[in-house]
């Protein structure tokens, strides 16, 4: 999995590329933890190049959402493909996490 992080006006943008599964979720967790521990509490996750997400990936997102919400922050996501969106629907994550269509929409109000 490739991970790219950049900061834009106090918002941390993190882009994942590849499969978000058992094998790759520890590195994703580490990257997100790094942002939160560095004081980044407004996070936007770019899913444009994520092909697949398993429950291990969902756990990482849920843990991060809990963490940032606990300090008054936000976690937004955008660019989900059909496969990822289906997993979000089934798991109920589309109701508890903030999912947007485009980067511009995700950045708004983060």
């Amino acid at each position, binding site marked *: 999995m490739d991970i790219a992080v950049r900061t834009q006006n106090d918002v941390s943008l993190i882009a994942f590329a590849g499969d978000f*599964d*058992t*094998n790759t979720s520890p590195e994703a967790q580490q990257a997100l933890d790094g942002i939160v521990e560095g004081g980044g509490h407004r996070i936007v996750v770019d899913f444009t190049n994520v092909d*697949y997400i*398993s*429950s*291990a990936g*969902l*756990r990482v997102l*849920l*843990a991060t*959402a*809990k963490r940032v*919400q606990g300090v008054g922050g936000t976690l937004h996501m955008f660019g989900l493909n059909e*496969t990822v969106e*289906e*997993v979000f629907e*089934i*798991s*109920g994550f589309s*109701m*508890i*996490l903030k999912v947007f269509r485009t980067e511009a929409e995700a950045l708004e109000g983060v």
Partner: protein
Amino acid sequence: MKGQIRKSFAVTVGIDLAEIDRVNAAFAEFAEVHDLPAKIRRSVRVVFDELLNNAISYGFEGRDSGEITVDVELAGDRLSVTITDDGKPFNPFREEPPDTLLSTQERRIGGLGIHLVRQAMDEVSYHRRTDRNVVMLAKRVTDD
């Protein structure tokens, strides 16, 4: 069965998480040959990822080696997957499904994998046969 061509493959792997990729690759080839729709491929990917991960991570504690066999069969429009392992007895479907209507703070981290598997397939079952766990799953192949 008369008038029906049965197509199948089986692959046996060891207890290493990297083996999941090998099963996925074998299924991808099978799916390609039999022209299975994308939805079915996604569903089976969920099954392998979640169930093999569980079996490999928790089923063989204290052991150096073990054996997991995956059988896939396409009979007419029914695709069945059987996962057999010689790990400790474990019924993955005994757990209560998570409450997917809870808020972020209320949601427990975990229990999601099996829920995804149940949703992905039409039928799921578990049997303990002598010293093996046998998980059987099936789904009807549709084009949508």
